[in-house]
Structure formats: C-alpha cells, structure tokens
C-alpha cells in the first residue's frame, strides 16, 4: 500500500456510486426525520398550550424522555425492540422496504421533535403577552392572532436553536449505521473495507459531512437574515 492517494478512491466508479448512494440515504433520513420532527413539534406545542393539565404533563414527559435517553439507545429500542413486537404482515412489509432507514427516520424524528418543540416554545414565550392582547383587541380570534401575530415573531426568535438542531439532526443521521442503514458513514466504512485506504476514505467522508453541515448553517444564517424585519425594511 503506497502513500496518500485520493485518486485511488475518486477515480473508482464503484466507490463513487457507493458514496453517492450513502449521501442519498443520509439525505432521505435527515429530511424525512426533519419533516416528521417539525410536524410532531407543532402538534406537541399545540398540546402544551391547550387548556387541561394532561396535555402539558404528556409533553413534559415526552420531552424529558427524549432529552435524557441517548439517541443511539432510542434507535436500538426501535429497531431491535419495537420492530420485533410488530405484527407479522407489518414486519414483512417493513423488511422489504428498507426497514433500517424507516426506523432511523422514526427514531431520529421522534427524538428531534422534543428539541424542536422546546425551541419553538421558548421562542413563543419570549414574545411579550401584550402582543396577544393587542391582537385580540384588534379583533383577531385566538387562532388568527397566533397565525398572524404570535407565530411569525416566535418562529423568528426560535430560528438560531432550530438551525443548530437541524445541523445536529443531520449529523445524527450517521447513527443509522448502528441499526444498519446504508447512509454515508456506512458507505465510508464499506469502502474502507474494500480499498484499505483508511485515511483517504475517512477524509472524504469528513469533508462531505463538514460541507453539508456548513451549507445548512449558511442557509440558516441566510434565512435568519431574511427574517429580520429591520433588514427587510432597509432593503
């Protein structure tokens, strides 16, 4: 085995197609769980703000579980545990439809929903209650006040942590390797097994992750900038 040689990997079409497949699955997992997490987070938020104590306690428990149990253990519980409890027909269906990626999406999505809903809640809490009263005084209903007055401000306040958590969601998609999802880290390890060019493969994998993370951070910064009303008024 000779010295450092990136081209040994980059010119091999087989390795390239493995890398591309890995990136594809990584994005399927990341985007799928992001959408699941956002939808759930909004539902959790609605439950939390609804009258009645049960909803509040449920959301608090949900958030507490997902924050205090390692994501990896949650994924293992889903894939090694809950998967085996499902009825046969569902097991067969999942097994023939890339069950690993599906459970990665479910596990990561449920986990991240807890973080997203907390972000949104702290964003909403930092909007002064006077805004709500003013909106109601102007004749808005509760929903319409939420939609047009509270939420736009609350989401804007919540943007920095939401972006942070989106990046960490993207990075956490690498945990899929533990339950056998064929994402980017998995592809990198496979290529390492085939080519024995450890250093080069890991360098490529690291640069790819860093590249996508920085793109997400950059997009987040752009969105925060666009959402800033002071800047928009100036433009």
């Amino acid at each position, binding site marked *: 085995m000779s010295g450092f040689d990136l081209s040994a990997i980059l010119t091999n079409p087989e390795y390239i197609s493995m890398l591309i497949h890995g990136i594809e699955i990584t994005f399927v997992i990341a985007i799928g769980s992001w959408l699941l997490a956002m939808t759930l987070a909004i539902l959790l938020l609605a439950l939390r703000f609804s009258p009645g104590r049960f909803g509040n306690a449920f959301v608090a428990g949900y958030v507490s579980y997902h924050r*205090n*149990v390692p994501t*990896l*253990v949650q994924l293992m519980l889903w894939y090694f*545990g809950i998967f085996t409890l499902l009825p046969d027909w569902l097991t067969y269906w999942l097994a023939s439809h890339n069950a690993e990626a599906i459970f990665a999406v479910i596990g990561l999505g449920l986990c991240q929903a807890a973080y997203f809903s907390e972000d949104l809640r702290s964003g909403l809490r930092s909007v002064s209650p006077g805004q709500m009263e003013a909106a109601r005084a102007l004749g808005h209903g509760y929903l319409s006040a939420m939609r047009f007055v509270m939420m736009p401000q609350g989401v804007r306040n919540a943007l920095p942590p939401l972006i942070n*958590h989106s990046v960490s969601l993207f990075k*956490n998609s*690498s945990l899929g390797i533990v339950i056998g999802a064929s994402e980017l880290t998995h592809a990198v*390890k496979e290529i390492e097994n085939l080519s024995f060019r450890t250093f080069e493969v890991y360098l490529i994998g690291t640069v790819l992750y860093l590249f996508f993370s920085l793109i997400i951070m950059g997009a987040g910064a752009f969105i925060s900038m666009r959402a800033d009303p002071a800047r928009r008024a100036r433009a």
Partner: protein
Amino acid sequence: MIHDMIAIFQDYWLLLLIGQYPNGPLGGLANTLILSALSIALAFPISILMALARISKWRLLRWPVTVLVYVTRGVPLLMLILWSYFLVPLLTGADVPSFVTMLTTLVIYQGAFLSEVVRAGIVSLGHGQMDAAKALGHSYLGAMRFIILPQALYNMIPSILSTFVSTIKDTTLGYVINVPDLTFAASQVNNQLLTQPFQVFLILAVIYYAICWSITFVANRLERRITRKRAGLGGDRAAAAVAVPAKIASEQL
C-alpha cells in the same frame, strides 16, 4: 412485561452495572460513568486554554483553534470516533484499548463544545471586570486567573453539568468500536437472551434516563440559584448569556 424486565435485570445486573470485561477497567455502567467523568475532567482544562486562544489578540492562536472548533462541530461524533480508531494506534504505535480511543475522541469533542461555553462565560462578564482588574495593577494573565475565570467558572457550573449529561449520552457511540460500556453490556445481554430484545433495550433506556435525569435536575436547580444570585448583582445580561450556552451544550444527542 415488567416481570420479564425485573427477571432480566436480576440475572444480568452484574454485567449491566459493573460486569467484568477483558478490554476495559470495569464494564457496564461503571465504565460509562468513568469514561464520562474522565473525559470531562480532561476536556475542561483544555477547553479553558481553547477559549483563551479564541479570544486572544494573536491570529496565529485564534485561527487554528477556531477551525478546530468548527470542524468538530460540523462533523458527526461517529466520524471522529472512526478517525481516532485508526489514528490513535497509528500515532502511538501500540494496540490501544477502545476505551482509550473513545476517551481521546471525547476529550477533543467535548473540549471544543466546552470551549464555546467557557468563551461565552468570559465574554458575558463584560469589559468592566478586565478594565478594573488592570486598573488595580493586575497583568492580563493575573486578571484572568484571579478575577475573570473564577467568576466565569462559577456561572458555568450548570453548563458543565449539562455537558456531563451529553457526554454520558455520547459514550453510547463507543458501541461502534466496542467500548465495553453500558450499551455494549446490554447488547451482550441481548445476544445471550435473543428472546426479549424489547425488554433488554427498555432496561437500557430506563437506566440512562434515571442517571441523566438526576444530573439534569441538579443542573437546573443550580442554574436557577446562580441566576437569582446574579440578578441580585444586577447581572441579568450575564445570566442570560450563560443560560444560552447551557442549552447549546445539552443539545447534542
């Protein structure tokens, strides 16, 4: 089902909590806790040096550390673990136990995250403290050592506890390189039983939950107390600035 879980725990508690393994000092939960405590203890002084480098005037100090922090934050921990899995033996030339490999990775990773916390803690104190210390005749290092860092570190105790929680959660990733921790122990139990995977991994989740929740609870209590104290000193801004990094530190995994 609860019966099954209790039965499993009774049969395997030794393995799960302190069981003996060939490639680690103790095994199970004991290993998880030792690994987390060691990596925080080692990462903390490093993070102070990194924070000082990041706020220093010299670009030669500031830039490399900034790049290191950005890279560590932008790359999954799993990727870093795989890196050290082959880099550490390559550098030391010896057959390094996976425990040590994991420790090295966690020290770098948590050092980078903690350095952001330390930096925010120092910056939140405001220039007045430094100016006053210099006016009293302290040098830069003396002011840091006797005036700035003691205050900043006191404010950061809750954040450090949250980092401890996230380190405990991060140690699970050692599973990929067979670090003999709690997760590894549970998967061994699962391999021996094979019939009740759900119960085994539920036990695993419950143990992690109990430990992390207790530390989070203590951290939250301390944070409220420190915030109240600082509010008494008129430091609302400082308290808010420290509360945010605490969230960032507890965000991962």
